[in-house]
């Protein structure tokens, strides 16, 4: 896994889209991002995992929507004017799948040289390091460059669920609370 992520960044300069989850900055390679949408009406699919927020209508197709915050073990996204949906092209078992990913806000598109990308921290991080391709410093902020394929592909979802059965329950409680408010 580590090797794979190292291989990916051995390219010269790439463009990244940076976005915010909570107070932290993340970035995704722009080649993965098809478009950015404003919040729209979500249709919840009952009995689905909590990070699956529902489905939306993307110009006539049904787009599954993933709550990136929940996926990262944060509280579910609360919708503000800044909340956006990134439409991503994910490689899932060798097949291209389109999904929507909820983020708190979209920041900017930056060009980052490969040499400025540092390897992901392995100890003391609250995020699983195989999800992270590397870390770059933009201005005063550190940005985590994410491996979108890995994060949003099905196998990983299953893994997450299995490894954090306990977290799931508390999240379900949180989810119910959110529903009560809506």
């Amino acid at each position, binding site marked *: 896994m580590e090797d794979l992520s190292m291989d990916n960044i051995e390219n010269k300069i790439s463009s990244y889209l940076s976005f915010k989850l909570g107070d932290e900055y993340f970035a995704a390679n722009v080649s993965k991002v098809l478009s950015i949408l404003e919040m729209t*009406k979500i*249709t*919840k*699919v*009952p*009995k*689905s995992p909590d990070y*699956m927020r529902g*489905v*939306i*209508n993307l*110009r*006539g*197709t*049904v*787009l*599954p929507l*993933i709550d990136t915050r929940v996926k990262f073990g944060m509280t579910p996204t609360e919708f503000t004017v800044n909340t956006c949906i990134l439409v991503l092209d994910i490689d*899932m078992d060798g*097949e291209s*799948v*389109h*999904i929507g990913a909820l983020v708190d806000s979209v920041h900017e598109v930056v060009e980052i040289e490969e040499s400025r990308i540092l390897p992901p921290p392995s100890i003391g991080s609250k995020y699983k390091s195989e999800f992270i391709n590397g870390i770059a410093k933009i201005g005063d902020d550190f940005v985590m460059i994410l491996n979108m394929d890995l994060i949003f592909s*099905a196998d990983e*979802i299953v893994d997450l669920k299995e490894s954090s059965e306990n977290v799931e329950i508390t999240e379900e409680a949180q989810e*119910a609370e959110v*529903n*009560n408010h809506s």
Partner: protein
Amino acid sequence: MENFKEKFKEEAIENINDLEKALLELESSPQDKELIERVFRAMHSLKGGGAMFGYANISEYTHNLETVYDRVRNDQMKIDENLLNITFASVDLLKKFLNEEDQDPEVIKEKNFLSGEINALINGQPIPNQPVSLQPFASEEKNKSLKTFYVLFIPEENIFDNGTNPLFLLDELGSLSNDFVVYPHVNKVPGLEKINPESCYIYWEIYLSTEADMNAITDVFIFVEDECVLQVNKISEVNLLQNKEFLNKIDKTYKDQVDADVNELTKFAYNLSQASVEEKKKAEEKPGINVKERAISSIRVASDKLDNLMNLVSELVTVQARLDLYAANSEDAELLAIAENIQKLSRQMRDIAFSIVLIPIETMLTRFQRLIRDLSNELNKEVIFVTEGVETELDKTIIENLLDPFMHIFRNSLDHGIESAEKRIALGKPAKGKIMLKAFYSGANVFIQISDDGAGIDPEVIREKAIRKGFISQDAQLSKKELIDMIFLPGFSTSDKVTDVSGRGVGMDVVKRKISDIRGEVEVESEVNVGTTITIKLPLTLSIIDGLLVKIQDTFYVIPLSVVNKIYAAPHKDLVNTFNHLVVLDGRQIPFYYLREELGVEENQTQMEEVVAVKYEDREIGLVVDSVEGEYQAVLKPLGKHYKKQDFFSGATILGNGTLALVMDTNKAIKRFSIQ
């Protein structure tokens, strides 16, 4: 070129299929002129295409076949079983040619054998003398004497683009004729600095004398008729190309660099022929038959274009709903009228777009009819094949994926299922076996049942075999259904001897796997000596269903209308705090599921709720929703891989206001609720 070859292949497959279909129909009505025409046309297209794209063997072979059918067409030969058998075998051979297996010694052997048969047909049967016909027209057509034709063939400059070689066409024309004079015109060829080597600047004037009629000549150009200017005229009823005077005349016309004036030529020829043949009537054919006027009944479209079309139409419908809403609020009469008109148009467009991507099951039946015909001959069993509901439409890709599994099933039925006629009579069954294919919609699914009235599957035989093969232990207690389901295990074949037809042990497990690949399910029911029924349940991935739009909280759901029996209103208090989950409606007790609870939506305060009574297996089950909104025609869209575990929703559909409604698969949903 490879590209064109692919295209030719595609077209050839279609032609071969059409041929096969027509032959099957011809078997039951051998007198049908139209069918013979269809057979002939398919062969002709194959021949022409084959020659053009380098499948010499195809064109050569079909040429001979065509000769036979030309005689049939002209009433010089009759369709009989022998001819049909040869033709069917030929169709298979052509398929092999198309797959470029022609180097295979087996195939060569087969080809030689069949060619011999065909030649025997052509040569063995003396051509009867032309019956004297009362119709002057017909007698003239069939007159074997030579006639003279003038052909002006001006290919378009881009004729090379699709791989046509005009010289081949001239060759073919030459092969039709007795005498043949060609005048190429090169006056359109530009100077070297302007010449494009990939364009055709030359055109031809051809004089030929032949026994063939005008149609045979225009048929030569059948593939290029849209890429050329073609003029075919009969100049004379006699062969003028032996006539010096005529030859001088046309030579002079050519040297003067002018195109021949057909009227003048005809007149000239008439005068000439008057001298020689006095009784010949003046050529009655009007000059310049327009060969372009053949109507095109279908065209080929890449399927991803269709997918795009579907998406655009769905979006149009969505935007339409917004426009309607806006127009209604604006109180502008003209805007309202426009919105209404656009609505009409978009509805029509939607219906047409949907009908394009769905194809009826009927389209794949020909090959099964053929399979059953051949196999039943081979196995010496008499079988009738009955179909029902074949107009049921399915997505094209699903149909394609069904071909192989269906082949296996039909083979099994014929080989193991249907017994020999003697045995059937001894068992008190009609001598002819019956295989039936029945298709129908149920809920959000299409069911296809293939049943036979044959020997059935004996669970005891399966048990023995399973024990022998080590699948189960000696004392395993298995129900009949469990035993029968063992035929789906890999490596399990009930036939002890391997026949040509089946029994290789790769049958039913492949069927099962292939069908589950397209999210389908297979079930087998069998009764010894009564028969076997295999039911295949398929999802309607890309399909429209009539649904009932219901609402729970603020989410819309669609329940397929076909499973809905009745809708009742019931007060909330009757539905909560019930001990046994039964509600009394119409004086009957109906078990129900409270969808809010089942789907994890919290309690609400509505006083009245509605119970939608749906069919589930052979029972009726109530589904409680907040309210029923009305009927809705839903276009199913898949929820995607991330929701594959939520399979009690068969998809989602886009509502008029752009939001999504989830389409419920009530069978799967109820099954899931019941095990919770």
